């Protein structure tokens, strides 16, 4: 894998909902160990683009490449299998279930009983879940706590742990800090930095520019369902980004499709 091959790349993605154009010829590239911030106003197409990447929506046009090879996702499972994981805005955790069960939901460890009956190995799941949480330095009282008994930040951490439990290459996060108490935001952002240090590519959608500027390496702006601007964080500033979000490029010389394709 050369250093210049993106771990995931989207080329010319179009997505229509009836007469509504959600995405029009959108490109995206993400390298290993890179945190890409995706911003844009409400309805700019951020969430739709992420759902295309995560296999929830098939694109109407355009192609996805993983490690430079074209792929097609029919459902989230296909994306999982390729190491693309999404942490959903509404968290997508089952509050009535334990932390370890949530982390391994749909992918439980089993052991064969009588040689052929696969039964859920609750002990193994708990041990593996604890190991994984330790690796990410996430602290909980016990992995057997129910998720509904956790704070918002802890739930977000569990959701992230869930997304990274199986050889994730890319983790997509949709507003991970939106519902958090202020003191918990920093912990989640540090967790994202941690993922980057593990070589995972992260796409972060956020309305909070504080978050973006704290954790991202590069920023990409969508406007009315199209690529509008893109820049390394070091070469832009908040005011310019706010201008881009509003669809205003007069101040900056940076143009759309800067280094795409």
């Amino acid at each position: 894998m050369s250093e210049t091959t993106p771990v995931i790349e989207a080329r010319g993605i179009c997505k229509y909902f009836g007469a509504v154009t959600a995405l029009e010829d959108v490109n995206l590239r993400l390298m290993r160990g890179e945190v890409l911030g995706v911003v844009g106003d409400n309805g700019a197409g951020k969430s739709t683009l992420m759902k295309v990447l995560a296999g929830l929506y098939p694109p109407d046009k355009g192609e996805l490449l993983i490690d430079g090879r074209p792929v097609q996702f029919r459902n989230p499972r296909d994306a999982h299998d390729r190491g693309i994981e999404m942490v959903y805005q509404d968290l997508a955790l089952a509050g009535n279930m334990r932390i370890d069960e949530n982390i391994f939901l749909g992918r439980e460890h089993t052991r064969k009983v009588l040689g052929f009956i696969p039964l859920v190995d609750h002990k193994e799941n708990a041990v593996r879940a604890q190991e994984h949480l330790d690796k990410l330095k996430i602290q909980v009282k016990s992995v057997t706590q129910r998720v509904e008994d956790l704070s918002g930040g802890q739930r977000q951490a569990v959701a992230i742990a869930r997304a990274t439990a199986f050889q994730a290459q890319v983790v997509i996060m949709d507003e991970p800090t939106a519902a958090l108490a202020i003191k918990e935001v920093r912990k989640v952002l540090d967790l994202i930095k941690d993922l980057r240090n593990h070589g995972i590519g992260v796409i972060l959608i956020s309305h909070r520019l504080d978050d973006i500027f704290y954790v991202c390496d590069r920023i990409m702006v969508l406007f009315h369902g199209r690529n509008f601007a893109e820049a390394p964080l070091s070469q832009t500033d908040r005011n310019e980004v706010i201008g881009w979000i509003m669809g205003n490029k007069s101040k900056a010389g940076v143009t759309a499709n800067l280094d795409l394709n």
Partner: protein
Amino acid sequence: MTTQTTTPLETHREESLRVRLIPFIDRYGVLLLVLVMGIVSYLLEPKVFLTWGNISNIFRQIAFNAMLALGEFVVVVTAGIDLSVGSVLALAMMSTAVLARDGYPIPVLIIVPFVVGAAAGVVNGLGLTKLKLPHPFIMTLGMLNIARGLTNLISGGVPISGLPEEVRWMGAGNITLAENFEIPVSLIVILISYALVGFFLQYTRMGRHIYAIGGNPQAARVSGINVERTLVFVYGLCGMLAGFSGLLLAGRTGSGFPNAGLGQELDAISAVIIGGASFFGGRGSVLGVFAGALVIGLLRNILNLQNVQVFWQQVLIGVVIIGVVYLDVLRRRAGSSNV
């Protein structure tokens, strides 16, 4: 992600007590209710209540409702409801009775209720997932009428009696362990069924997925769980157990009658709710449901022994449902007030 350091010790201890107490009541509250009812029954009828004859009679009476409640429970765990179980019971029972009258062999007569019940349940599940009817209430309300109508169609609306002894065995048979000590086969059948379903829910992937669907269907879906297929299975299982219940009732009464199980779905739902399951899904255990069925059975039994009018029994069951769920509301409020 916890910051426990700032929490004063005092509240921490209080919290830990509550943390330990609430799951305890969660799990054993309804068993306590059974115990209390048993003691009250004993005090009211010291000579009769604790005789094995009376106890085994209670189990014999609750067997078919307990079987219905077991299937209903699995559906309620997914945050669904099945209103058709009473009618499906009747259809399964009548199918067997009709085939028995026409001289079909015993194994067929025993298998048919399961097949008929499962088929009706699968149709419920498919209606829910393929037709995308807005709520399981609608599909199973339709099935309630369809199955009841079919029951009357195949039987001409009249009872059919004279089922073979072998077919009746599970519903009416006894296993004699000692003199004056017989265990109803239906009790053993119920215990085995509860154990199997409880094990299935706890230790198989699909069982855990059923709880996950009840907790958050969206989470289940994005986790790669095939929610539709699981739901079809759940309604099929519920229908099959309703068919089984029909076999038990056919055995106990020695016949098939078209009004069997009329309104019985409400008793089944009552047992599930008294047993601690939540209509919002994802909660409850088979042990609780069994206790819930037992509460209803005990209530009926003691009221019968006291010669209380049957109409009052219905009133009291209504009061118990409301009371138990209200206690649950109070408990949750107490549990969440300081979190």
